[in-house]
């Protein structure tokens, strides 16, 4: 993986890190006691999860009538949340697979957390697949199971079946890819472990990694192969999710632009979510040297690009609705912008199209506060995008006699909150027990792309530099 990096490029790792520094900095939170911040965050997440789980249980026990759905609007928050989470789950694989193939070195600092986020987001999305079913205990019927489970086969024409394949494949590959990437780091922690228990556990999970050249070679091959496998998946998952709508007959859903538009939207929201998580992690775990402003800026550029693609898609939809001359299609879009749900539409437009354009300004793009705020705004906007597509298309479709409004209930909201509880609980567990930055990969860029320190101190471990003021002086 060695290549030449121009000296004028800004370094990816600052603070003149040595290999030892990397290991030390990143393993610290895994090996140490949970920090106060982590404990508080984890407690809150678990409480939210318990509350959400109780609400989900009640939804399951009573029936979906506890939601605000009706005969006209058969999907609302459930599928909105599902698509939103799946969308968020796109960033991880994009970063680890496509950026790997494109040799984007900056990804090394963020790919681990992004992939973890992907996996947890897909789990949250899957929970809504189950939750939205009238009889979730029969969910297995959506799988092409052998006849012992009943003589019927699934309907391969149904986009929901395609979804089952797409999501489960994506989940599996992402999980394997993530776990593969973890192996050298798990081995590092195993080697450093002081207690027998953690040595045993990390040892078991590191699958006997021995750091030999052969092992590393296999690791590299596998990374490339999995990256190759994942790349089409990044595009396919949200394409197929978009088919849930695009193949239907409902005006506002029946649109050929959906696949690229959904993929762009997914990356858009995924990157925004990665930004949010990384900005917190880098502060809490003191990883500012690894996740630098360069990373933040690069991701903001991606956000601006995908946000603009999404914006163009919104305008194209409008144009096509008018150009097609289809009465229902044009009405669906006029209704989006001016109907009873106009506020949702304009919330979406503001958050998704206008707000990311602020990143054209370098100051904003490199401002942590702006980045964090705008990333939250983008994710709100992307939630509204799915809400607008699903609810405003359904609530006024063909026959005006059936037009109706959807109003969320406590359970719509609480079941959404459940997914946050689930996500953050899982993510906090991950951030405590696994290295949040890929140590092995960061080390590969240290030589070529890290901040160079004066010769006198380069190669001296940070701990020593801190202990010995002489070194410190030279740094300054």
């Amino acid at each position, binding site marked *: 993986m060695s290549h030449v990096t121009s000296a004028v490029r800004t370094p990816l790792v600052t603070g003149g890190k040595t290999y030892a520094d990397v290991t030390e900095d990143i393993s610290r939170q895994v090996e140490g006691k949970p920090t106060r911040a982590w404990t508080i965050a984890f407690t809150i997440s678990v409480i939210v999860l318990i509350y959400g789980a109780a609400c989900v249980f009640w939804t399951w026990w*009573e*029936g*979906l*009538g506890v939601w*605000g*759905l*009706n*005969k*006209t609007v*058969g*999907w609302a928050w459930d599928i909105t949340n599902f698509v939103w989470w799946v969308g968020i789950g796109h960033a991880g694989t994009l970063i680890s697979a496509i950026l790997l193939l494109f040799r984007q070195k900056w990804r090394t600092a963020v790919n681990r957390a992004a992939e973890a986020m992907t996996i947890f987001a897909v789990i949250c999305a899957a929970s809504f697949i189950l939750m*939205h*079913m*009238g*009889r*979730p205990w*029969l*969910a297995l*019927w*959506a799988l092409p199971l052998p006849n012992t489970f009943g003589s*019927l*086969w*699934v*309907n391969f*024409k*149904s*986009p*929901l*079946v395609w979804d*089952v394949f797409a999501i489960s494949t994506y989940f599996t590959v992402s999980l394997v890819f993530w776990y593969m990437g973890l192996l050298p780091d798990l081995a590092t922690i195993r080697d450093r472990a002081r207690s027998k228990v953690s040595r045993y556990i990390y040892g078991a999970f590191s699958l006997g990694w021995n750091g030999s050249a052969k092992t590393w070679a296999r690791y590299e091959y596998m990374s490339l192969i999995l990256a190759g496998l994942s790349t089409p998946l990044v595009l396919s998952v949200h394409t197929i999710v978009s088919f*849930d709508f695009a*193949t*239907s*007959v*409902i005006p506002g859903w029946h649109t050929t632009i959906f696949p690229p538009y959904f993929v762009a939207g997914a990356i858009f929201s995924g990157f925004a979510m990665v930004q949010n998580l990384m900005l917190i992690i880098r502060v809490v775990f003191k990883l500012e040297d690894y996740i630098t402003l360069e990373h933040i800026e690069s991701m903001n550029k991606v956000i601006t690009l995908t946000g603009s693609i999404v914006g163009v898609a919104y305008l194209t939809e409008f144009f096509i609705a008018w150009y097609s001359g289809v*009465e*229902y299609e044009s*009405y669906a879009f*006029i209704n989006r912008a*001016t109907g009873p749900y106009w506020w949702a539409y304009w919330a979406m437009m503001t958050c998704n199209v206008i707000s990311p354009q602020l990143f054209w300004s370098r100051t904003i793009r490199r401002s942590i506060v702006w980045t964090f705020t705008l990333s939250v705004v983008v994710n709100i906007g992307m939630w509204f995008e799915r809400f607008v597509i699903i609810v405003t298309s*359904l609530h*006024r*479709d*063909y*026959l*005006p*006699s*059936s*037009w*109706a409004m959807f109003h969320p209930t406590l359970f719509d909201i609480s079941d959404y909150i459940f997914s946050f509880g689930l996500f953050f609980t899982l993510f906090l567990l991950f951030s405590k027990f696994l290295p949040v930055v890929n140590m092995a990969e960061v080390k590969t860029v240290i030589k070529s792309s890290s901040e160079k320190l004066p010769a006198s101190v380069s190669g001296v471990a940070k701990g020593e530099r801190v202990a010995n003021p002489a070194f410190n002086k030279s740094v300054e």
Partner: protein
Amino acid sequence: MEENKTKRYWKGVEELRNDPTFVKNANSEFANPDLSDSSNDLDGILGGSNTQRRDFLKVMGFGMAAVTLAACEAPVHKAIPYIKKPDLTFPSISDYYASTYTEGGEYASVLVETREGRPIKIEGNTLSSVSKGGTSARVQASVLSLYDIDKLKGPKRGESDIDWATADREIISQLNSVAARGGAIRLVTSTILSPATKAVIAEFIAKYPTASHIMYDANSAFGVVQANQASFGKAVIPSYDFSKAQTIVSVGADFLGTWIAPFEFAHSYSQGRKVGAVGNGKKTMSRHYQFETGLSMTGANADYRTAIKPSQEGLVVAALYNKVAAKLGGTAISTASVDVAHLDKAANDLAAARGKAIVVSGSNDPNVQIVVNALNNLLGSYGTTIDINTPVNYRQGNDQQMNAFIDEAKSGRVGAVLFFGANPVYEHPRGAELAESISKISLSVSFADRADETASLVKYIAPAPHYLECWSDAEPKQGFYSLAQPAITNIFKTRQFQSSLLTWIGKPSDFQVYLKNFWRTNRYPQASGFSSFDAFWVKCLNDGVFEPNKGAGVAGGASFAGNVAQAATGISQRYKPSTGLELALYEKVSIGTGSLANNPWLQEMPDPVTKACWDNYAALSQKTANELSLAQNDLVNVTVNGKSIELPVIIQPGQADNTVSVAIGYGREKAGKAANGVGKNAYPFASVAGGYVTLSSFSAKVEKAGGTREIAQTQTHDTVMGRHAVLQETILANYQKNPKAGRFEPKVVTSEGPKTSTDISLWNGYGKPNHSWGMVIDLNACLGCGACVISCQAENNIAVVGRQEVINRREMHWLRIDRYYSSDAEPENLKELEVASANPEVTFQPMLCQHCSNAPCETVCPVLATTHSTEGLNQMTYNRCVGTRYCANNCPYKVRRFNWFKYFDNDNFDYNFNNDLGKMAINPDVTVRSRGVIEKCSFCVQRIQESKLTAKKERRRLEPDEVQTACSQACSTGAIIFGDMNNPESTISKILTEEKDGRAFHVLEEINVRPQISYLTKIRNKDEEPKQATRQESHA
């Protein structure tokens, strides 16, 4: 081999020794001698003695397993087979009994479908030339009232239960003592259609000479009766035949929805409205003018409708009379002039249609009715469209007698009162006065089936059973008789009214015997061609009807002898132009006068016009609402004569400005779970003016009360948004020129030029080699009454979900009737298109699963729960459904319904599915759906299958129209035609062959889903209006 034979192996040393224990167990499967006396161990275990550790574990194990198994198993309800099967009753095969539905003055000859001895469905009896196989929603729903859990289980004295013997003893002794001291005995009933019952009443009066029989109707037509007395010397209501009329004018009569005999009128009315293949090829139709206050179902069907205030009603009739008289040479009358739209046009059309015209008025004011009679007389309607020589008996109530009775009761001059089929405390304008005086009456008895508002005040309740448990007869129309026979034995300890009366006069109480004898003496002589009375009786029981007058036709006219001038004076005195707010009370098509209010099907049935259910409300026009700064759902106090009720506002297009309409029949307090507290009682707003109950008031007040109450409506968007693919309509003149007028035929531009959308397809389609079930719905014949909706609900076990769930837009009806108002806006102005006209044109469109041949629902189901049959049906497999609702989302017609909750055995839905009695109305052929699954119209696939099996057993093909769906069977106008489109002999095929290039269209044809249901364009008999003309041109 040899060697092997000699070789012996022992199982053990016991075998070698031939141990006795071993020999004993040698042939058993588990020959373990240790277990041989284990039964004794078990006794020990069960007895609780001698329990060993292992026994304890055994019992624990068994116990755990048993508990686990019991928890898994649903509770087993016992199904007990017949010990001795009754002859001709086969499980799963329906028996049909002809009977007669009467509820007050409402009548229908019916067939009762029973399964294993329980009635489950009511169908119209096509042998009746009065009701002609038609039904109304209330007739359809009446079967559920049979299984009403809130009914009394036996007779009551005050609050306490007594037995019949005690009740009879006490009541007879008190009747005798009242009679002995010369105290007045009053039998207060609603209209009684049964001659035999009247004979019983006559005998009762003969036995107790101080008794008299008082009939009154909550929806009185006494004014009509009295006007006919004054005009023709006959105190009757004539027969009306709308089919023969070219011009129909109704002033305030909702004759298709609630007036006199609505579905009978609907049948004859629709005959005059059908054109093309369904109308025997005719291309003319009647023209209908309606002058009314609130938008009624009849007004919604009118070609020209004018909103008038109640105070203008008499004046409109008089003005119409004057205008027609001016043309046809009658004497003019003098009343205040009234200037409303379409009056001249109506008069012109009436005069032009002389001999083929009909004018009806819903007024209960005899003066108005005398002028109507005079007008009809001028128009030569008597003997053509109106037959006064064959009167109908639907309304025999006498408001004056009832009024006098209440006066008597107030002054304490009544010794005994018996209420039958009557709940005057609730449904009479002076009910409150009566309520106070009932306690003054020494003997008061009610025959009500529940302790209703009146019955809860009386001393004895002698509950009469439901009509499906009773013997009776009826004479709806002079010379047309019908029989009612029980379809089930009495569910509770009830006794029919006639038997009670017979008992109390000391006669044998068996009314069946009485009825048979009555028919022997009174009907048999009118019959001919029967060998014996028994043969006649069996035939009548089988047919349900006996119609000696049938085919007699309209026998001559009648000579009008009314005093029009005097009537005009009366009108002038009463009807004066006013500017204030006025009130009009009306009956809803579903709830009527409120006697069936505890029927959840009827409560949840949307009103044809407002589409609201589970409530009554104050209907205001948009203009009046704006003036009073009110919006929909605002609570207001409606005050009339110092009485006030709080109601939510509904904005009603077509409502006359400065008027408020309120439905009667709501606000029941003692009817039962479904009815109590639903809406407010508006009867106190009615008044008795000059001895006639009047349902309007010329002075009312509407004030904001603060707060809101959401009205449960199944449809909240009123207009069709200019979508011609949904609703296709035209006017008669255009239709006559071009049968395809009004059709919308979009073309798709392709590289090979424009094509119709159905020419381009991704799909291969499904073969329909045998049958192809389809439906034609005539938008001209559909009047919106909703009988089909309730019929479907009864047939298909559709759950009632209640008011809040309707507000949540989750009603479960498989078949709904969409009601669209026209809008004045230009087609481009989408915002304005949402607003209905002030006085809109209305279209009703029954909407149900279209059974698309390219069904969007089928492709999207992940588990193949909805599939296509080889007969063109879109099938729903409830068991397979996992409830993703994708099919419902993808349905362009939004006809799929999701079970949001478990609607049976659920206290949150405490309707008929929540008690064992109510569940007896369940059709055993149709699954009751569990929660979490989608359901929808199946084209009554259970009926199709049953007919196919019958045909197969009889080794024949299905007859052309053998299968009828519940909706098509219920429709009294024949608006829904169901059949096999593959059979060229079926009605539907014949219609479609003719109308394929005419009126037939598919809703949303351009999306190429190819429905099996075709609609026939709506045609209005209107003159072309300039605006409409230009719009149609621009559209073309």
